[in-house]
C-alpha cells in the first residue's frame, strides 16, 4: 500500500506514522460535520489540562462546495486527516515535515513553506495562530496552535494538524481531477477510482444541498437540536459537595454539531439572509460555549473527583 499509489495507502501511511508517534488512532465521528475540528476528540479534548494525542480521518461535509461532480477540485464531501497533540510538542513542525516525507513528499525536491494563516471558527468560538502549509505553492495542510476553544483559553495549548487528503493524494499521484485518483492502488480491471466511489454521491448530494433539501424540516431540525442541546446541558449539571459537575456534555455537544450542520445546509439552500446568517452563527456558538463549559466540569475535562 504505497502512499503515492493509492488514496487508501496515503491514509494508512498517515495513520501508521502518527500511531508510531503514540497517538490514539480514532475512527471518524459518526455524525455530519463541516471539518475534523468538530469531532469531540478535538473540540472538547482541546479543553482542560489533560494530555491528549489523537489522529483520525474525518469525512467533512461542506454543502455549499458541491459542484455536481463537475469541478476537478471541489467536493461537498471530502476527507480530512486530523491530528491533535496536547500540549503541542516543541518539535511539532519537524514531526509534521516527517509525516510529509512518510507520504512521499521529499523536502529536498519540493518547496515546503509555512505561510501565515490565522484560524478562526466563529461557530465554535475558537481561534488559533498558525499557517497554511504549502508544498510547491499548493496548500496541503493547516497547522494551528489553538489559543481558545468554545470561548475558553486553552491551557495547555494544543497543536492541530489538518491534512486535505484529496489534495495531497492528487499531488503525490500526479492527478489533475479528484475523481481520477486511484483509490485502492490496483491497476487494470481491479482499479477503483475516487470517482467510482464518490462521483454519483457528489451529483446526488449537490442536487440535494442546493435544490431539494427540505428547508421547512431543516428549520425545524435546527430548532429541535438547539432545544435538545440546551435541555441536555440543563439536565446534566449536578452538584457534589460544593463542586458542580456535568454528566452529559458529550450528548449535548452532539446536538450542537447537528445544529451546525443543519445551518450549513440551510445556508447552501440560500434561505438564510445576510443578517440572519450572523444570528444563526451566534446561536451555534452559544451552544458550543455552553458545551465547552460543561465539558470542563467532567472528568476528561479535568474536573477532579467527578461524580461520573
Amino acid at each position, binding site marked *: 500500500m504505497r502512499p503515492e499509489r493509492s488514496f487508501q495507502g496515503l491514509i494508512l501511511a498517515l495513520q501508521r506514522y502518527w500511531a508510531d508517534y503514540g497517538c490514539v488512532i480514532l475512527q471518524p465521528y459518526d455524525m455530519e460535520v463541516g471539518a475534523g475540528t468538530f469531532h469531540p476528540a478535538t473540540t472538547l479534548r482541546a479543553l482542560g489540562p489533560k494530555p491528549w494525542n489523537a489522529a483520525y480521518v474525518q469525512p467533512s461535509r461542506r454543502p455549499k462546495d458541491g459542484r455536481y461532480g463537475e469541478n476537478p477540485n471541489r467536493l461537498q464531501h471530502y476527507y480530512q486527516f486530523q491530528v491533535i497533540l496536547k500540549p503541542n510538542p516543541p518539535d511539532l513542525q519537524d514531526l509534521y515535515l516527517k509525516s510529509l516525507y512518510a507520504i512521499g513528499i521529499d523536502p529536498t525536491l519540493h518547496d515546503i513553506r509555512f505561510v501565515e494563516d490565522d484560524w478562526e471558527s466563529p461557530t465554535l468560538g475558537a481561534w488559533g495562530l498558525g499557517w497554511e502549509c504549502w508544498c510547491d*505553492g499548493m496548500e496541503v495542510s493547516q497547522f494551528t496552535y489553538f*489559543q481558545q476553544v468554545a470561548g475558553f483559553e486553552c491551557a495547555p495549548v494544543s497543536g492541530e494538524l489538518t491534512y486535505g487528503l484529496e489534495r495531497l493524494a492528487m499531488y503525490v499521484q500526479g492527478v489533475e481531477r479528484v475523481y481520477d485518483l486511484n483509490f485502492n492502488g490496483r491497476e487494470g480491471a481491479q482499479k477503483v477510482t475516487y470517482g467510482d466511489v464518490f462521483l454519483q454521491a457528489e451529483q446526488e448530494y449537490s442536487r440535494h444541498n442546493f435544490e431539494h433539501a427540505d428547508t421547512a424540516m431543516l428549520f425545524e431540525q435546527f430548532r429541535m437540536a438547539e432545544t435538545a442541546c440546551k435541555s441536555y446541558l440543563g439536565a446534566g449539571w449536578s452538584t457534589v459537595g460544593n463542586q458542580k459537575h456535568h454528566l452529559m456534555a458529550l450528548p449535548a455537544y452532539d446536538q450542537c454539531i447537528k445544529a451546525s450542520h443543519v445551518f450549513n445546509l440551510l445556508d447552501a439552500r440560500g434561505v438564510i439572509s445576510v443578517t440572519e446568517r450572523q444570528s444563526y452563527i451566534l446561536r451555534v456558538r452559544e451552544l458550543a460555549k455552553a458545551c465547552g463549559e460543561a465539558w470542563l466540569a467532567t472528568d476528561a475535562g479535568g474536573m477532579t473527583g467527578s461524580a461520573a
Partner: protein
Amino acid sequence: MPDLLIELFSEEIPARMQPRAAEDLRKLVTDKLVEAGLAYEGAKAFATPRRLALLVQGVPARQPDVKEERKGPRVGANEGAIKGFLKAAGLTSIEQAKVQPDKKGDFYVAMIEKKGRAAIDVIGEIVPEVVKSFPWPKSMRWGEASAKPGALGWVRPLHSIIATFGPETEDPDIVPFAVDGIAAGDTTHGHRFLSPETIKVRRFDDYVAKLEKAKVVLDPERRKQSILTDAKNLAFAQGFELVEDEGLLTEVAGLVEWPVVLMGSFEEEYLAIPDEVIRATIRNNQKCFVLRNPKSGKLINRFILVSNTEAKDGGKAIVAGNERVIRARLSDAKFFYETDLKTKLEDRLPKFKQIVFHEKLGTQAERIERIERLAVELAPLVGADPAKAGRAARLAKADLLTEVVGEFPEVQGLMGKYYAQAQGEDEAVARAIEEHYKPLGPGDRVPADPVSVAVALADKLDMLTSFWAIDEKPTGSKDPYALRRAALGVIRIVLDNGLRLKLQKAAPGPDLMSFFADRLKVQLREQGARHDLVDAVFALEGQDDLLLIVRRVEALGKFLDTEDGKNLLAGTKRAANILRIEEKKDGVTYDGAPNPALYRQDEEKALSKAIDAAKAEASAAVTREDFGAAMSAMAKLRPHVDAFFDKVTVNVDDKAIRENRLRLLNEIREATRAVADFTRIEG
C-alpha cells in the same frame, strides 16, 4: 567598545509583521540602553521568516558612575525624620551626611554615589523585558508552559535566543538571562532544509557569514535585491519584462531565507481573462510575479515564483507543482469571468434589495437609488449628460455581486467597466463605473471625465451625508467607513477639475462643512499652504464653494507676502486688539458706524474715506471672484491705517470722540472681512 548581538529564533513569523518587528526590537532595546545610561554608536535590526536579529555597536562596557545629592531634614529634626532619611539615602549614621545651609537653616545632605553596573548585567535585564512585552500584533502561547497563567507570548513558538556581548578583539560573553525557560546562548540554526545543523556564533560578523554559509540571507533588503535582480534577468533572457510589484516583493522576501527564483508558464487560453484578474489570481493566491511583453505591455503566459530552497532536480518539481496550482486557479478565474459575462449588470440589481448597507441606512439598493438621484442632479453642474450619469450610477455597484469581484475585491469597479463594455454600454458610462471609486488615496488618479466626476462625487457625498445623518462621524483614529478619504476625494475632484459647487446644498449636514474645512486644511497644508489662512477664509459667512475658498486663500497668501499685506495685517490686528480690550473694559461693542461730525484729525477723515473706497472696491472684486483685485483694494488702506495709528490717539478724555475712534477701528476690522477674517491669521 563592545558590540551586542541578539537573535530571537522562532517558528515562521508572518511576512507582513517582519519589518515592523525588526524595527520594534531595535527601538525597544536601544531606548532602554540609553535610559540605562548606555549610549551606543549604532544599531541595526534584521528579520527573516524564522528570526529577528539585532546588532548594537559601541555599547560602553559599564554604566557611568552617578553622583546624586539627596536633601534631608533640618539639622536638629526629630529622630524619626533622621532615621527615615538615613534609610532612604542608604547611610548608616548621620555623620556620613554633609550639612548645607539654605535660607531656612541648616540641612543634612547625603551624597549618594551610584556605581555603574557592568553593561552585560544591565543588558541581561533589558532583553527579557523587551521579549516579554514585545508588541506583536497578535501573539500566542504554546507547549507545556501554556498550561500555566502568565506564560510567555510570542508571534509563533520561540525556540532559542542568542545574546553575545563583547569587544571585537576578544571572545564575547553570553549575556546571562533566560526568558520563560529559554536561556540565552550562542547557537542557532541555518536553513530549515538546506542546512539545519546547529551553528555556534561569536559576534555579528561571523553570525552573518555563518548564516550565509548555512543558506540564510539575514538582511531582508539583500533578499529583495537578489529576488528582483534574478527575476528581471530571468525575464529579460527570454525577451519578457517583469511586472514589478514592491508590495509583493517585500512579502515574498519575508517568506524565504534563501530565495531561488524560477520561471513557470500556463496555457495561453487563460490570457483571455483580463490582465488585472490574471495578476490578482497569481499574486494574491500564489505570491508569484507576472511578466509582460515589453512591446505590447500585455501579460504573457509566464510567471515568476520564488522558492525557498535549492532543489536536487534544479527546481523542476517545484515549477511543475506551482504550474498545476496556477492552472487550477486560472481555470477558476476564467470560469468566474465567463459566468459573470452571462448576466447583464442591471439584472443583478434586484439582489441589492436583500443586502443591508448599514442597519440604520437601509439596503444597498436604497443607497444606489440615492447615488443615482444625486448623480443626475450633479450632472449639469459638472458638465455631464444626466442620463449617462444616472445610468453609470445605477450600474456602478453591480460588479460587487459578480464572481470575480467576490474572489478579488481589489478589482471592483474595473470589472464593472469590463462587463459594461461587454454589454455595449456607452464608453463614458463604462469608464465612470471604474472611476467612481477614485481617488482612493493621495497617490490615486482623480477622475476627469464629467460622467465619472458626477458619479464619483455622488458616491462620496452620499456616504458623507448619510453617515452624518445618523451621527456616525469619524473620531480620533476611528474612521471605519473611510469618511475622511471620501471628503478628501470630494475636495480633490472639485479642485482638480475646477468645479463650482455649493457644498452646503449638495451635502447638507450639521457641521459637515467644518469637516470639509478640516480636510481642506490638511490637503492645503500638505501642499505647503498655511492652515490659518484657510481658517481666516472659512470664518467668513457662507463659505461652501471649495474652489473659491482655495482661490481666496491663494490670493490672501500672496497678499500677506507683500509689504502692504504684512503692515495691513499688523494694523488690523492692532485695531482688533485695542477694540477687544476697550470693549471688555466698557462692556459694550463699538459696532455702529462712526459719526463723521466727530472726526477731529485729517487722518481720521482720510482713513474713513479710504475704508469706504476699499470696501466698495473689494466687494465688487469679490463679486467678480477676482480675489487678487480684492486684495489690491485692501492694500490701499494700509498707508491710512498706518497714519492713523501714527498720529491719532484713541483713548482720549473726550468720551464721544474716543467712542467714535473706536468705531472707526471697528470699521477697519469690518472692511478687511471683505476678503478674510484677519484676526484668525497668525503672525
